């Protein structure tokens, strides 16, 4: 089986525009979720994790000048600007050439340019930009990717599933490099939807905590570059191993009562990785801070007999970034492995799930070697992916 290396990563969030900037805030325990009072997003003030618009525009102008002098910034949507910056930063410092026929672009997004349905944008952009493939085409044209991009839109597991799908394709030898990028933006569409579910917390979310009261929404992008080419490995042997997907077959908007199906995916991913559950030394959970999700995850972790393994959620830093979350959180997991620590789970103080699990309340200064990323989403989907340091 071909080895799949993670060779580069980027995170764009309220906490910064590079993986390093984000890592500094994660290490300091700073959350990017703040009460925002923006009428375009919500009639009432709502806690959100938003990407700084001024910096986004400034950084984008620089990149546009470098790649596409012939284009005006107004040609690009907010999401496209974020994705382009994320991909450009992840590409920088690698020898990956997008024009190479062995390079594949994989896009993870749940809602794409959904803001273009708002009246204020309809006249500004071609109506076709609402399609998810149009976003991928913008990226393909900007960077000059040759191959047809692969687009995954599978609710909140999109990002982890995109990494799983890409690593499987690399193992077949069909491609040597995959640029896996994911993004979603905060919009009235998404915020009002989660409000209608009464799923939003009135304060920054508190995953796994006794006093958690729902999720916080966020926006952002994450990009991870995967390669099966030997010699392309500045991350010093952080590998993508086995991955698995399952479905609860229970409810379209509520997670499994038992966690059995997520546990199935976890066990399959670990088994494919040629390792065993007791070797996992860090779990990056989905941890949305809704009562049901966190409870279900605790049951799945317990069913897979990993009660003592350090677990954290990044939702307390960035909120839930939907199709970006799997990539941003996997990038953070890679940062943990590379820099030898496990970031504390922001917002967690008092255990609040029925199973005893080891939620990280204070950043651990110990390098994790075999790590698990898990995610679950609407439609009953679950995903699990193992990363390992050689």
């Amino acid at each position, binding site marked *: 089986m071909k080895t799949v290396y993670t060779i580069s990563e980027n995170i764009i969030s309220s906490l910064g525009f590079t993986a390093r900037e984000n890592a500094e805030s994660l290490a300091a325990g700073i959350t990017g979720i703040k009460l925002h009072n923006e009428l375009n997003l919500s*009639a009432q003030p709502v806690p959100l994790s938003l990407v700084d618009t001024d910096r986004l525009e400034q950084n984008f102008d620089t990149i546009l000048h470098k790649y596409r002098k012939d284009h005006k910034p107004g040609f690009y949507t907010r999401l496209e600007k974020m994705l382009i910056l994320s991909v450009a930063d992840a590409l920088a410092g690698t020898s990956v050439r997008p024009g190479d026929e062995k390079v594949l672009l994989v896009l993870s997004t*749940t*809602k*794409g340019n*959904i803001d273009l*349905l*708002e*009246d204020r944008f309809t006249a500004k952009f071609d109506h076709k930009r*609402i*399609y*998810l*493939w*149009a976003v991928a*085409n913008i990226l393909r044209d900007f960077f000059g990717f040759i191959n*047809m991009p*692969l*687009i*995954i*839109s*599978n*609710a909140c597991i999109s990002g982890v*599933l995109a990494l799983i*799908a890409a690593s*499987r*394709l690399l193992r*077949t030898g*069909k491609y040597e490099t995959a640029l896996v990028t994911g993004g979603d933006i905060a919009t*009235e*569409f998404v915020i*009002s*939807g*989660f*409000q*209608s*579910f009464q799923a939003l917390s009135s304060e920054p979310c508190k995953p796994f905590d006794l006093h958690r009261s729902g999720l916080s929404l966020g926006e952002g992008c994450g990009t991870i570059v995967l390669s099966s080419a030997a010699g392309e490995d500045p991350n010093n042997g952080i590998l993508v191993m086995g991955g*698995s*997907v*399952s*479905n*609860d*077959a*229970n*409810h*379209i*908007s509520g997670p499994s009562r038992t966690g059995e*199906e997520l546990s*199935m995916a976890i066990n*399959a991913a670990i088994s494919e990785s040629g390792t065993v559950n007791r070797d996992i030394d860090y779990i990056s959970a989905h941890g949305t801070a809704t009562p049901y999700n966190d409870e279900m995850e605790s049951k799945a972790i317990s069913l897979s007999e990993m009660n003592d393994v350090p677990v954290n959620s990044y939702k307390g830093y960035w909120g839930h970034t939907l199709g970006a979350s799997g990539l941003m959180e996997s990038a953070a997991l890679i940062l943990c492995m590379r820099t030898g620590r496990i970031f504390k789970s922001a917002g967690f103080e008092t255990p609040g799930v029925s199973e005893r699990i080891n939620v990280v309340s204070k950043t651990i200064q110990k390098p994790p070697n075999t790590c698990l990323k898990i995610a679950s*989403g*609407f*439609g*009953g*989907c679950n995903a699990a992916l193992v990363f390992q340091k050689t």
Partner: protein
Amino acid sequence: MEKMITAYTYFGDGKVVVNKQLIFYQEKIATFAEFIKALYKQEQISYPKFYKMDSLSKLGFMCSELLLRHEKPGRFKPGSLAVVLANSSSSLETDLIYQDSIRNRSAYFPSPSVFVYTLANIVIGEICIRHSLKGENAFLVSEKFNPRQLLDHVSDLLDNNRAGACLCGWVEILGNSFRAMVALVEKENEQAPKTNFGSMPFNEASLNELMNLTEKSIWKN
């Protein structure tokens, strides 16, 4: 081991074809809602949740229903039947309905029962619930039908025993324009029942042929 398409459904141009058999035809389709309701009634399907689904889920649900309802219970082990679907417009059909419900702040009616369908993969969730499928699933998006991407993803599932069989295909709807083709793909084995159309190798040519049944007219009336 060879991977074969052992059954399929096709919806397009007012026609519903199951394993070479034209089972339903409406020459003039007024709306998708009427079309799918008439089909549901004709086929005497009884599943109350159907009425709560959005159009994309109804379309995918009917495709899988027509494929799986004659299967012997227990032919697929729990977790062994995967679902991999794709389309072009994701959940845009329902996105537009949802956006209309929040367009006006003085008449603001966001509904959780609409919002939940603004994700493309909910159709897979509905199919999984109906048939208790707990295996692999994925929803892919491409501008046009892209058999290569489906083939790559599904082949990996079957070749590496992540799944024993897979429902795979295309479920596209926007307004009253729709087309769907869902195939049951399995590894060649004795347990696969012989359908009245035999089987086809699982490859790009087969998928393209099944997607273009209207032009090829290979069904029997």
